[in-house]
């Protein structure tokens, strides 16, 4: 049983409410931070903890905080990125829905550390009902003196608001999120300047994922050094993994980083194995953007070592034989799955979500979608495989924001590891149609 730091109290009845959350030690991190630490000391603790951004990029949070410019007289902002839209990822929703006060508590401590007096939680519009839950939790926090003027009698004041989006994956990119919060289209900005210097309304801004901000609470409670002892190597602490696809027990699991992938997939404590006793075919380990890996490479690295759930181990072998931890969106596919059709749903997704600023992404994503459709319909030729490879290679690294890269990596990895499926689709004039509905519901797990 791995250590749990974020979801350890999730089964306490009524933990969503302020009273129960407080009775179980909630808001102690705010007390500790405001009474015992300067804001710089909190930043130091987070640096010591080794916490890395949980939204997908895995950038060290303490370092990101350290970059924040602090010109006198200019307000600074903390924005919480709750625009969770990466296919396969639903951990932030789970956390906000089940233990909303943990995020509020994390927001207060993090805002204090950064010297922000106004902070926003930007949540995707589809999560409207979750936004309501957060607003309720915020109202409770205000009523009990955790938000507003002079928190706990100190001279620190904080206002916290929830901002809803309206359906755009791109707003999870931090500069697009800022644009959206300013009431504009979610077009990512050219960097530099980075948000740490000129972000929301031109002011220094930090954007952090929900899980990252929530993790600041245990870090302050236990101390950065203690937190760093959990996990493996530079992958410290715990991570929420959203497990979905053809597994017996889909859901959100908090794991200690370093857990073997094989244990995660097959142990009853986690995914509980492949549904219907089928064989594992492939896994997308960190949300739709990361390379898909065939069973043999997800369970063991190319060197033959057991693959672990950590930033380093999943990336072992680079993109040739490895992948990335990403957002922790763990999509499992069984032996009957068409890699091509799954890829088609992803390429269609990126085409739909491209903001349209950069030509390689705007045109390339749609082109890849149309070519993949040809493989499904049986009108593709062998040349289309090379064309697909060529298009993805010309999007990768040639756009303002990483959406272009994210659209190209799944295509590249599918061709790299499953080229034979593309060739079969050409030879057989299409792919085998699988009725997923029956597959889903004929199982005893339902």
């Amino acid at each position, binding site marked *: 049983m791995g250590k749990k730091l974020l979801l350890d109290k999730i089964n306490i009845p009524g933990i969503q409410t302020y009273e129960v959350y407080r009775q179980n030690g909630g808001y102690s991190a705010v007390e500790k931070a405001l009474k015992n630490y300067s804001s710089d000391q909190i930043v130091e603790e987070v640096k010591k903890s080794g916490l890395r951004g949980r939204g997908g990029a895995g950038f060290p949070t303490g370092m990101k905080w350290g970059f924040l410019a602090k010109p006198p007289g200019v*307000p600074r902002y903390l924005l919480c990125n709750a625009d969770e*839209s*990466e*296919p*396969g*990822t*639903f951990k*932030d*929703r789970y956390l906000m*829905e089940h233990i909303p006060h943990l995020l509020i508590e994390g927001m207060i401590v993090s805002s204090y550390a950064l010297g922000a007096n*106004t902070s*926003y939680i930007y949540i*995707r*519009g*589809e*999560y*409207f*009902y979750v936004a*309501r839950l957060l607003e309720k939790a915020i109202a409770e926090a205000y009523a009990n003196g955790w938000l507003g003027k002079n928190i706990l009698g100190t001279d620190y004041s904080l206002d916290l*608001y929830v*901002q*809803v*989006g*309206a*359906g*755009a*994956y791109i707003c999870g990119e931090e500069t697009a999120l800022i644009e*959206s*919060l*300013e*009431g*504009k*289209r*979610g077009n990512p900005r050219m960097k530099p300047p980075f948000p740490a210097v000129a972000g929301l*309304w031109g002011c220094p801004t930090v954007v952090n994922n929900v899980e990252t901000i929530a993790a600041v609470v245990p870090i302050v409670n236990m101390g950065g050094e203690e937190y760093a002892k959990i996990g493996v190597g530079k992958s410290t602490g715990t991570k929420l993994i959203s*497990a*979905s*696809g*053809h597994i017996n027990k*889909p859901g*959100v699991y908090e794991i200690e980083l370093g857990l073997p992938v094989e244990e995660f997939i097959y142990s009853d404590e986690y995914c509980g194995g492949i549904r219907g006793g089928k064989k594992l075919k492939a896994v*997308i380990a960190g949300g*739709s953007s990361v390379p898909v890996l065939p069973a043999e490479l997800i369970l063991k690295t190319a060197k033959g070592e057991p693959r672990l759930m950590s930033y380093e181990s999943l990336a072992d072998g680079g993109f040739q034989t490895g992948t990335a931890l990403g957002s922790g*969106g763990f*999509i499992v*596919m069984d032996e009957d*799955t068409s890699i091509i059709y*799954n890829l088609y*749903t*992803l390429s269609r*997704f990126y085409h*739909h*979500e491209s*903001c349209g600023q950069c030509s390689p992404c705007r045109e390339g994503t749609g082109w890849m979608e149309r070519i993949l459709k040809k493989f499904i319909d049986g009108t593709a030729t062998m040349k289309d495989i090379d064309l697909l490879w060529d298009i993805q290679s010309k999007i990768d690294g040639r756009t303002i924001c990483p959406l272009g890269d994210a659209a190209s990596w799944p295509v590249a990895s599918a061709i790299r590891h499953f080229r034979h499926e593309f060739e079969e689709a050409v030879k057989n004039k299409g792919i085998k149609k699988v*009725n*997923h*509905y029956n*597959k*889903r*519901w004929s199982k005893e797990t339902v």
Partner: protein
Amino acid sequence: MSAQIHGVLSFDKEKRKQLKFSESALQTIEQIKTRYPEGKQKSALIPVLHIAQAENDGWLSPEVMDYVAELLNITPIEVFEVASFYSMFNLKPVGKCVLEVCRTSSCWLNGANEIVEYLEKKLGIKEGETTPDGMFTIKTVECLGSCGTAPMMQCGASYHENLTFEKIDQILDQYKSEAKRRNYTDTETFHTK
């Protein structure tokens, strides 16, 4: 998109003159504006458009967008730019209940295509169409962050998860009998596992 833009070109001055949101909506809008520093009220645009859409039968007409521009003291093109960018804003009329079926990866792996086919057969319309009585619209959407409870669909503020054909029958029956519009902003939200 082009068809939607085309629809926006017609602007009814009379309709615009008569347009007024409910008192409670106007109050909420004023409240939202206070969340931002002085002079940054444009930030209220997306939350206000959600309210506007709920006030206007589930879609944003050119007249409504013009009205929102006035409420936030910005130009109508700034409103249209945003309304046409985000997928939750409808630029043409939709049914009372918009059934938004997720179709991306994990939902497809769990039968999203079959769910759409079932809805199409049951309602006698195709994806993107509205039933003649104006009750239902079928829409396919990209990942809604409900991958562990796939297949799923959203209607208004509600997430319907782990969908089965039987579950769809129940949901549609209930919606039909209640016969009311379902908005994202509805407060009596529920979440069916």
